[in-house]
């Protein structure tokens, strides 16, 4: 999976490493800003109210 991504990235290895880092950062940002808040709200993982 990761090897497949690596093979399909363009350029020499420093460029590939940079692109891979940027992709990883983008995925983490999407999870932190939208993915995890959705998960928390939908499954009530952190409820503190009664009723």
């Amino acid at each position: 999976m990761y090897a497949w991504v690596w093979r399909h990235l363009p350029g020499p290895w420093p460029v590939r490493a940079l692109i891979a880092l940027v992709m990883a950062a983008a995925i983490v940002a999407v999870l932190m800003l939208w993915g995890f808040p959705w998960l928390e709200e939908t499954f009530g993982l952190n409820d503190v109210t009664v009723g």
Partner: protein
Amino acid sequence: MYRRARRAQHKRARRGARGPAATTLGIVGELLLTLGILVLLYVVYVLWGTGIQTGRAQDELRERMVDAWSDPVAAGEAPVAAGEAPVDPAETEIGDGYALLRIPALGEDWEWVVVQGVELSDLARGPGHYEDTSDPGELGNVAIAAHRSGHGAPFADLDLVGIGDSVEVETAAGTWTYTIDEPARVIDPTDSWVVDPVPGQSAGTEPTERRITLTTCHPRYGSSQRMYVSGVLTDGVEI
């Protein structure tokens, strides 16, 4: 035996590919690694990422609320224009700053801006006032909920608040001090009676006391149960 294995390895290396079983196992391994990283990231989000959001929201709420309190229009000394902040805490819109909450037992600097409402989106910004419960100083029960882990965890140590500890609530209308007379107790998520006007009595019972009730989750890093502490008004204007 080793020689045979090595020969097989050479054969595969010559072909430049692994067998189908090894390929499948490789993919499964990568997926498991990815899943592990995602779970760790979620933990980082809950314990740390949410605190950053809440900290920012608190700064913004505090600025807007304190501005509104010192505004002569809001203080009732000038005519109220459309869209101005209200003085009466009861008129606070859901999601807006409602009061300042201080619990000296949790630290000298322990002060949070309470928002109106207890939806998760409200609690993501700070402790929330159950909007249908009393306002500070009124007969009945002022109920406030807050997270115990993540989102700044305002009530992380609520279990350490005991009998005799004070809870201060400040709004544009004044400051009230409540004294805890019921230490932390664990209840079920459905035990909504703790936020009733007279806790333990049917919702229609006329209140004779001025109480405050603070709710959070239990256990600290879960939410299968709830925990609450409760106190009675000991200082401030009775409304």
